[in-house]
């Protein structure tokens, strides 16, 4: 893991999961898997978070909350969908109150498969998310420069 140059903080929200994936997300933070040794911390505050871990699909009630949390997070941000519920609705896809995967509400960058997703897979997803985060950051750095150039051109 020597290539982890940034320690992301994560925020976790349970869309409408069965708990299976939630406790696996928590298990990642506890001594057996212990992602805290890389400085990855689970925060409750969306404004502190870089990575948004969502478990479970969305329904009429949770759609607002997921959106709110996502909107509050500062750029750049990455969304990781944990478990098949979050990816597509999974086994509950046909339920009347399940709208589908998280990607119906917010753009998802990494999908972690599994029902329940194993802690190893979740950690892998977060590490993949780090790559995306770096890309987004680089794009952000470039953007203002490009915009300034375009403006300068227009002026001329």
């Amino acid at each position, binding site marked *: 893991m020597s290539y982890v140059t940034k320690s992301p903080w994560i925020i976790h929200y*349970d869309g409408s*999961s069965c*708990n*299976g994936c939630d406790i696996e997300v928590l298990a990642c933070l506890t001594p057996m898997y212990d992602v805290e040794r890389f400085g990855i911390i689970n925060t409750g505050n969306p404004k502190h978070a870089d990575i948004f871990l969502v478990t479970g*699909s969305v329904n009429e009630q*949770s759609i607002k*909350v997921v959106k709110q949390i996502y909107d509050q997070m500062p750029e750049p941000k990455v969304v990781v969908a944990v478990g098949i519920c979050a990816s597509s609705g999974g086994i509950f896809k046909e*339920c009347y109150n399940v709208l589908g995967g998280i990607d119906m509400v917010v753009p998802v960058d990494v999908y972690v498969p599994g029902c*329940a997703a194993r802690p190893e897979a979740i950690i892998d997803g977060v590490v993949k998310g780090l790559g995306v985060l770096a890309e987004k950051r680089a794009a952000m750095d470039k953007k203002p420069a490009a915009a300034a150039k375009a403006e300068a051109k227009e002026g001329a």
Partner: protein
Amino acid sequence: MGKRTIVPFGPQHPVLPEPVHLDLVIEDEKVVEAIPSIGFIHRGLEKLVEKKEYTELVYVIERICGICSFGHGWGYCHAVEGLMNIEVPERAEYLRTIWHELSRIHSHILWLGLLADGFGFESLFMHCWRLRERVLDLFEKTTGGRVIFSVCKVGGVRKDVDKETLDEMVGVLRKMEIELKELTNTFMDDYSVKSRLVGIGVLSKEDAIELCAVGPMARASGVDLDIRLTGNGIYDKLGFAPCIETAGDCYARCAVRIREIYQSIDMIEEAVKTIPEGDIAVPVKGNAPKGEFITRLEQPRGECFYYAKGADSKFLERMRVRTPTNMNIPAMVKILQGCDLADVPMLFLTIDPCISCAER
């Protein structure tokens, strides 16, 4: 008398692993009233009976909750077996009981950790969850899954466990017990932990009965209520007696669950000693006949009902689960009245809420 204010709690909150919302009416830091509102995780999975055959539905029912998933699978299978008059082989009942008690151990240790986190003892939380991984390893070894197992099926179980593995299981649990003692001693004897638990959130025996509390919540208030006493599975052969405390406060609820962990270890050892040889499942064919069947099961969180109604087809007509958390919410609202605002997260946790069970 101060001014009344309403403080919203949740749905996304650091101490809550699951979304639930409480409106707390407070007056000078004291909670006057708590108004819960739920519905964030409702999926409507009972309706899936119309789309999945009764043999397949067990996968859905297991996913009502990832913590007591085995119990849900068992309860559902039991209801359907009752409906179809299927006699399950004894070895399967033993294996089911062993797995169910393992789930109880894992669920209670998980809860102890969350409680420790709730009152701000982070390292205790970490240690509880570290120990819990041993139980998950046992699950993985015997069933193949860590939290969702799918080993229970209508007519029996899907996997057999050989003698060596069962003995090894008992060995691991006994070893774990020694470490667990240190942790539970902290919960029971530590001065600062006690100051957070003793005398907080008292639920009297009358209230517990009146408000229909179930499981450890009721047992901590002195109500002698445990479905394992009615002898489902093989509990009558294991010398089971419920753990009862009388104080009704957070400390008593903690004590009940801790005693149940040790009791479950003893029961697993006893079951491993006496497990008979034989088949692990009987073949199940044909439609689920017309009729209905109700069964009950003691989940880690309390009494749980399973109701199945057949319609002489491959699909059930109705499947209903009444989960323990639903029954404990009125009791929780009661103990929240008059408590300090700072105690709310902890009191909320002492009912061992499982919102995904409650809303399904």
